[in-house]
């Protein structure tokens, strides 16, 4: 819980700094956040390689965990389908297209803007950023309430890169392989699902 609060604190602090333009724009700083992410990924790899037991644990991992990407896609689309009832001005396909972003906000918002216009594209951008933020901020709580697969599923397409370090912390090293596999599959499904729902 304390860990989550600190993370939320840093995120809010960042928003305030961004809003008030205290620092020079991120673009001029180069890709600081990408380099940070790369350092994090390297360290996650380091922890895996450093653990003598880990490869044995991977082999013992239940094959059923491979079903997680399917649960993520079905669950997300079912949730977004229900939302259609509350958003009368959006079609079912619109809601499903936004949901199919699975947290991959850069790709999904660009695709949806091209197919359906900037309005829905911006909704996709916001909705999928929020999804990533929910994963980053809520992972420890989700583990406690719904088990170790829940934050990985919520992470959607991001679980092999941006949210992997947090998920490693929250779910433990044993689930790194589930997280990477899940991210890999969901990541690939995003462009297909988004364009499919945009075209129908």
């Amino acid at each position, binding site marked *: 819980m304390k860990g989550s609060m600190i993370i939320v604190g840093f995120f809010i602090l*960042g928003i305030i700094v961004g809003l008030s333009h205290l620092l020079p724009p991120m673009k001029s700083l180069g890709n600081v956040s990408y380099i940070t992410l790369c350092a994090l990924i390297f*360290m996650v790899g380091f922890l895996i390689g450093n653990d003598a037991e880990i490869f044995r644990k991977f082999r013992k991992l239940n094959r059923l965990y491979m079903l997680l990407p399917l649960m993520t896609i079905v669950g*997300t689309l079912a949730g977004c389908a229900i939302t259609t009832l509350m958003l009368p001005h959006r079609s079912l396909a619109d809601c499903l297209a936004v949901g199919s972003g699975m947290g991959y906000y850069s790709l999904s918002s660009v695709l949806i803007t091209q197919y359906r216009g900037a309005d829905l594209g911006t*909704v996709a951008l916001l909705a999928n950023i929020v999804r990533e933020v929910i994963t980053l901020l809520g992972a420890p709580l989700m583990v406690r309430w719904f088990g170790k*697969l829940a934050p990985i599923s919520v992470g959607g397409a991001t679980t092999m890169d941006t949210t992997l370090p947090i998920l490693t912390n929250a779910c433990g090293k044993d689930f790194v392989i589930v997280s990477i596999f899940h991210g890999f599959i969901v990541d690939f499904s995003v462009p297909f699902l988004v364009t499919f729902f945009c075209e129908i």
Partner: protein
Amino acid sequence: MLQIISIMAAGIGAGWLLRRHNFKLVGILLTVLVWALLFFLGIEVGENEQIINSLQALGLEALLLSLAGTAGSILGAWALWRFIKRKEGGGQ
């Protein structure tokens, strides 16, 4: 994506080579860098005018969609988790 995979592979290699040593520091550094990452993400959101300006008009709709998608995927993952734990016997 290829870049991420190769960085990860490099990390695994380095960790494996140094497996006889104990690295408590890496865990601490990981936590601190996660804070930094969230701080940078906050800055990017805060200084993005497209996001800040459209929050009022489209924010609620986006929030609703992301919460619904999140809830749906949690339920799916929870069902799978309970199924696996029951099969493995004993549960958590």
